[in-house]
């Protein structure tokens, strides 16, 4: 047990080393674009106010009536914040595919060496899986830290008369994007990450099917993905099948969903275990 954990740690560290450059780039991009947003957005707002006051000889109150108060929430809604998140999510999604195929493509088939290692092949599977999740959580943590840095910057740029200091947490809580990314509501956070874990497990299984059976594996993978999605979506059709829209409470529907999502996750792990140990070819 201890040995297999040590192996997993070593493989995860190895994968992390390979991911680090890409991850640090994403972290840097997040911080840089966020910083531009923290400076540019409030400056642009103050610029509009100053221009309005100069052109119309307006008072502070008139400017407030025209533009309203600016809050940190206004910055969190801009593309300077949402953009890096979208780049991070899509980047790591693509990396989830790349993390497997890089072993086969290139000058040497590194997969051969990896699969010949005298360790459980599932350690290889889990090391890649953990690496992706460390990447995801690192980007979330970076975004969190960035917001803590950005709040005082924004409040320093906007003159106090025009600033609506609703607080950092309130600004974050009001943005639906952060409701899913940050542990603001623990149930939502668990749900989103639970779905993310299972999607990644299904994706890994589909990749292993393709690696095991080639073209036939592509069809199998697509079918497996459709079957997993159908199974998870099935409960939503129960009311229609039973001709009664109120046969299940929404909370019960959610519990059934959670059970099915976990079942798909477990099934994907067992399928992947079988494929990586018995079927995969180098």
């Amino acid at each position, binding site marked *: 047990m201890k040995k297999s954990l040590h192996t997993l*740690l070593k493989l*995860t*560290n190895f994968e*992390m*080393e390979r991911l*680090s450059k890409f*991850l640090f780039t994403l972290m840097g991009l997040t911080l840089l674009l966020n910083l531009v947003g923290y400076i540019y957005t409030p400056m642009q707002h103050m610029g509009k106010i100053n221009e309005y006051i100069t052109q119309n000889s307006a008072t502070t109150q008139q400017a407030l009536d025209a533009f309203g*108060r600016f*809050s940190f*929430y206004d910055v969190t809604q801009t593309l300077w914040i949402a953009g890096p998140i979208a780049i991070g999510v899509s980047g790591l999604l693509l990396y989830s595919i790349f993390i497997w195929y890089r072993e086969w493509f290139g000058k040497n088939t590194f997969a051969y060496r990896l699969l010949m290692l005298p360790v459980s092949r599932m350690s290889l599977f889990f090391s890649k899986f953990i690496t992706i999740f*460390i990447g995801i*959580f*690192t980007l*979330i*943590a*970076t975004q*969190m*830290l960035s917001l803590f840095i950005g709040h005082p910057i924004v409040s320093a740029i906007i003159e106090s008369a025009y600033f*609506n200091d*609703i*607080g*950092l*947490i*309130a600004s974050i*809580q*009001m943005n639906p994007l952060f409701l899913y990314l*940050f*542990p*603001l*509501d623990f*149930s*939502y956070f668990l749900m989103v990450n639970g779905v993310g874990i299972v999607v990644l497990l299904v994706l890994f299984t589909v990749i292993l099917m393709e690696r095991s059976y080639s073209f036939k594996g592509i069809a199998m993978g697509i079918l497996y993905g459709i079957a997993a999605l159908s199974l998870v979506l099935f409960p939503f059709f129960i009311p*229609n099948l039973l*001709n*009664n*829209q*109120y*046969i*299940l*409470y*929404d*909370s019960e*529907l*959610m*519990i059934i969903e959670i059970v099915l999502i976990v079942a798909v996750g477990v099934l994907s792990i067992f399928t992947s275990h079988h494929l990586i140990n018995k079927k995969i070819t180098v």
Partner: protein
Amino acid sequence: MNKYVKLTSLFLLIALTFIGFSIYKAQASSPYSQMKVVTTEGKPEYIEPVDFFGYVSHSQNFSNSSTIEFDEGSFTYLQEKPFLKRMDHSFDPKLNNLVDNYRTFMRGKSRRPEQYTETDQHLIYAGSKTDVDWNSPFNNQMTISVLDKASDEEEAYSVTIGSDNAYNDIYATYIDYPTLTIFVNRSGVSDTSRNLVYTFDIENPTEALTEVVDLSGYLDKNETLSVSQLSDKTERYIPLKTVRQTVVSDYDFRTETSGYFAYDMQAQEVIEIPPFEEETLLFSDNDTIYVGKPLNESIELYEMNPDDKEMTLLGTLEMATPIMGQEDSSFYSDRFNQSVTILDGKLYTYGQEYVDEVSRPIFQITDVHTQETLFKGTVMPKDMTEAGYTTIEVMEYRLDPSRN
């Protein structure tokens, strides 16, 4: 150990940031304004039967808006309720109470409060097939379910309504146990619409509902029927009014009340109510019909004898503002008396008070016999600095007769 430096650093970054964020979040004040009931006259315990869902918004930041529930004298934000509880949430306070107390009985039944009625011993549901099976709009099938609250036993009856298939909109149900009275709007495939009153004897069930009155005869062309929102659906008289719709333009129409009636559940007949010249309020409570004449800041309240229609003046009830008792803020055209109703000898009213940029609800409870104001008050943020920019609007309002 040096070879794990990146992994360890990232792990520490994640752990410390998440822990720090959680601590900061726990220490930060709630983004939702804490609310309190402010009593300006009378005693606060009189507001206990009032349940409502409200919408709280800040004029400084409209995106920070949230739904608040006032139930049994305390406030809860919808966002602060447990996750699974939030999923079963309904914006109707009565439905929430029914789901909380009779979860098994409520399964498979529609979520329209007007289809439920109860006595101390029974909870009764009347719903058409369409209410639960949205793919079957035209039929003549209905289910009546009766729950014995003491034994928790449910008795369900499948009955037919009319001889032909139609879209059956059950918009009110009342009980004079064992007789269940059901108001139905039946729309046929050919666009014909009839307002009918049916009865069903729970102790001697039949296979079909009994049609007792066709209310369509009381309605002219372009008139619709509106039924009073009653908190206690065991009252003998059900106030009704006919509403005429006049088209003003392609996008707008005007509504005006054209007639007032009360349906007597015991005699199974419709009583015409003579209206006042200006505006008329019509209520029922237990075995009494009340007719109100709204004045500027008061209501002149009369008790009407249903036999000779003679009105006896009970007194003049002073209202907190001119709008109280005169404004009908119901969102539903087929219902009235949402913001003003009489329950067990008390007149409950609410209205919105506008102060500068914000508005907040005012509640008033008055004894109809002594004209004494039992409660007058409003809802405000506990933190008075928030009062200047916090608006509280009542969305759904109900009285719980069991707490009266």
